[in-house]
């Protein structure tokens, strides 16, 4: 079959070539394995908590199976060359998260009965619903965005939408936007949405597009100082803007975690785009300044820092959550209490901010490290797609998204294990929370989209070839170091 005919068949989604088919078969096999682990986990929870395997196994075992299978079909249709490891990691994490959320429902219900309180209601069924929404987002992105470079054209539009999402909770009255002291929510008709999660992706797309366009200016002009090339004052604009944005989020939203995430992400994007370490140094300086300001301006930041430094001094009050998290992790030890065998519900917010502790307590160090390794695999595949893709925008976007996953995971795990102050972020895919789950499914869809384009055989891609309206890849002008100023 001639190459052109192959490509035509592929675009119509009728047949895959051998490379694509092999990848998708491998993906399916690993999906089955991942779902098998999730099924086993759910069965263990049911036997430990209820004495026997029951009907929930069908729901919480089959949901990941169905999700995995549907996602697989979507990938097979829309991104056939994509990395086969990414989706199984995601389904594995989402499935384990569901099992833990349901396990915590039972635990919290018993705890509420014990204390004679009303039980707030199960979280797991709505997480199943959100998984479905996540898949819709996944499908929508892969189906609509057939080439990631299209996104460059909408960079400013996406940025505006992202900023709107980010700013909305901060301008809404507190009763629509405040949960546990952080004004980062939109609460309507019984649903709580954290728009910041989606804003993270939109602003990453914008950042990547903006920096690809401006990278020459940002990287070439500058002056040397202690061995590093520093940018000109007027080129600092974007970085300062990002910094101010993060401070704004912090001031209005009281959300330390999101603010830290955005800033870290933007600094890394700048570094990759400009290929200059001086941006990292500048970023760290601005971060230190921001942290210093935040510490002195906001009482909640001071509390979190003092809890971090002296967690057991006020272990029954402000330090309760983190100290109980440490107790949970310590009690889990090497091998854990076994799924369903511990008491993760003792830690407040066990299914959202502290789900890592719940896993650490019940699966032990070995189990938790295994879960982190799956994350590591997912992140590594993201970076590998960034290295493999040919266009700068794709590289920057994928590296940024992968790094945002890594940074979020790092901040969460470091927070619950007291390596850093606890900041109240959710763990991607594991934590209970609809907006986070949907956003992360979209994020993974983007990774798969780029991965697909990176791994597509090196003939001219039909979409690109047939879209002359796309912006051309920016020409790299050879410039000698420290030249123009």
């Amino acid at each position: 079959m001639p190459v052109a005919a192959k490509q035509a068949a592929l675009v119509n989604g009728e047949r895959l070539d051998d490379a694509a088919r092999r990848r998708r078969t491998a993906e399916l096999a690993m999906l089955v394995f991942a779902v098998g682990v999730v099924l086993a986990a759910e069965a263990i929870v049911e036997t430990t908590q209820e004495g026997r395997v029951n009907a929930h196994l069908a729901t919480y075992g089959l949901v990941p199976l169905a999700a995995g299978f549907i996602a697989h079909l979507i990938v097979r249709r829309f991104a056939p060359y994509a990395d086969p490891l990414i989706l199984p990691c995601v389904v594995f994490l989402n499935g384990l998260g569901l099992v833990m959320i349901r396990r915590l429902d039972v635990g919290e219900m018993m705890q509420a009965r014990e204390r004679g309180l009303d039980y707030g209601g199960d979280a797991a069924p709505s997480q199943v619903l959100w998984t479905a929404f996540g898949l819709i987002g996944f499908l929508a992105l892969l189906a609509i965005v057939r080439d990631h470079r299209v996104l460059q054209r909408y960079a400013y539009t996406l940025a505006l939408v992202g900023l709107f999402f980010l700013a909305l909770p901060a301008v809404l009255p507190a009763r629509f936007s405040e949960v546990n002291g952080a004004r980062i929510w939109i609460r309507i008709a019984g649903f709580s949405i954290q728009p910041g999660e989606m804003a993270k992706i939109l602003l990453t797309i914008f950042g990547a597009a903006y920096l690809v366009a401006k990278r020459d200016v940002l990287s070439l002009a500058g002056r040397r100082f202690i061995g590093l090339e520093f940018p000109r004052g007027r080129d600092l604009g974007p970085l300062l803007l990002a910094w101010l944005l993060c401070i704004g989020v912090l001031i209005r939203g009281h959300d330390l975690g999101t603010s830290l995430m955005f800033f870290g992400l933007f600094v890394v994007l700048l570094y990759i785009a400009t290929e200059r370490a001086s941006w990292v140094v500048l970023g760290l300086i601005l971060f230190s300044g921001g942290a210093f300001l935040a510490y002195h301006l906001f009482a909640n930041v001071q509390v979190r820092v003092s809890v971090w430094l002296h967690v057991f001094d006020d272990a029954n009050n402000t330090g309760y959550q983190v100290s109980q998290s440490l107790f949970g992790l310590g009690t889990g030890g090497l091998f854990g209490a076994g799924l369903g065998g511990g008491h993760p519900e003792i830690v407040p917010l066990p299914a959202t901010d502290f789900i890592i502790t719940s896993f650490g307590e019940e699966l032990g160090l070995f189990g938790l490290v295994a879960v982190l390794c799956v994350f590591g695999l997912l992140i590594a595949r993201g970076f590998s797609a960034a290295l493999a893709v040919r266009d700068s925008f794709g590289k920057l976007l994928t590296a940024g998204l992968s790094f945002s996953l890594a940074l979020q995971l790092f901040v969460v795990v470091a927070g619950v294990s007291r390596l850093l102050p606890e900041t109240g972020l959710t763990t991607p895919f594991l934590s209970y929370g609809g907006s986070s789950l949907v956003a992360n499914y979209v994020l993974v869809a983007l990774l798969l989209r780029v991965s697909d384009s990176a791994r597509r055989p090196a003939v001219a891609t039909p979409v690109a070839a047939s879209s002359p309206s796309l912006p051309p890849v920016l020409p790299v002008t050879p410039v000698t170091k420290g030249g123009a100023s």
Partner: protein
Amino acid sequence: MNRQIRRVAVAVGVMMGALLLNLDYVQVLKSDAYRNDDRNSRVILATYSRPRGQIVVEGMPVADSVATKDELKYLRRYPSGPEYAAVTGHYTRDYGLDGIEATEDDVLSGNDPRLLGRRIADILTGRDPQGGTIVLTLNKAAQDAAYKALGGRRGAVVALDPSTGAILAAVSSPSYDPNLLSSHKSDDVAKAWRAYNADADQPMLNRALLQNYPPGSVFKVVVAAAALKRGLKPEEKIPAPSVLQLPESTVPMKNFDGEKCGDGQTDTLQDALAISCNTAFGQLGMDLGTDSVRKQAELFGMDGEQRKTPLRTAQSSIGEVVDQAALAQTSIGQRSVVATPLQVAMISAAVANDGVLMKPYLVQREQAPNLSTLHSTDPELLSTVLDPTLDKMLQQMMVAVVKNGTGKKADINIPGVVVGGKTGTADNGPTDHLNAPHAWFSGYATRQGVPKIAVAVVLENAGVTGSESAGGAAAAPIAKDVMTAYLNDAASD
């Protein structure tokens, strides 16, 4: 760009490495410290997740566990509540464990290394792991009688099997209800805990084993034993003045109500014990010497050792004897002499058992959940307090106390049963302002010459200062009730 991406990926790797190192620190290095931290309730929650073993008296549980629908899966119950509290102790989530619950916790919780094989089998077969059972030596009839006779008055009763040392009854009164402390409702538990601790009658104090009292005149049995060893005979006359001038002391020793003993100058050893003559025993002690009295007291168990039955006991001893005057007061069980009710019961038990003192014990058997025996307690010799021939004389003297002396109210009219004993009325409190004296009785019963039961009774502040009648009037009837209940029980055959 790729070089920068690789560097960022390496940085991510370093971040992951930092997380793993920190998790190692939290979950491995600090694991034990965090697990056993007081503020960490997970371990105690885990112990509630399997049924704790029973504590059994004559086949009936005095502590057992029932399944609940709470987060804590099993509730600890004490079917007889306060009656056995001095022995069972309590099992609480927030206030720790006490009594047999504490000392036998390994077996009851199933954590004992001897149960390890079974625990693994339980895990493999999916059976619910369980704790082992503790079988006590207590006799229900004796315990019931003692608890009933004390009737909530401040005091204690301890009964022993003289030939083995098995504890047949141990009651502390007033008692507390361990059910209120084992409840899963922490507020209720806190309220009960505070109330018990604030109660002036100290219901949670274990008076039977952990409270030292001045033994008063019951200690004269020890001095009498030392005298017999020195070669005195029960019929021999010893000095018994109405008022005994103590050397280097301005305060003379008198008898209760200033009574005469014998002819006012001398009395027989046996009669001096029967009527509890203070001056005779004060002089006798001084004649015997400190070493002799101390040695004899130590043989009876008043050696300052803390015993484990396995419940801990207070250390009984005669204390410091600084001069002859102190020795005289020591010899009538005052001054620095302190003894627990268990110790006082041991004195009668040794006399009843032909001078052989057995080590008191409370746990008959430790059993695995399948009721196989893990450990069975064998009777153990503690000391020989007197030769059998001399001991027969002491028995004769103690029988005389009950037949003709101050202990008449302890006598039991059952064919073949012989009761011996000694009353006591112990001064206590500051020397310038004495509280009402404690009433004591220590005695034993034999049937067809076989020692069956030894018992000690103390009633706090039940007497009137200056009167010897308290021990005989208040404490002896309780001892009689306990001995009668036991002798009528099939277990005593």
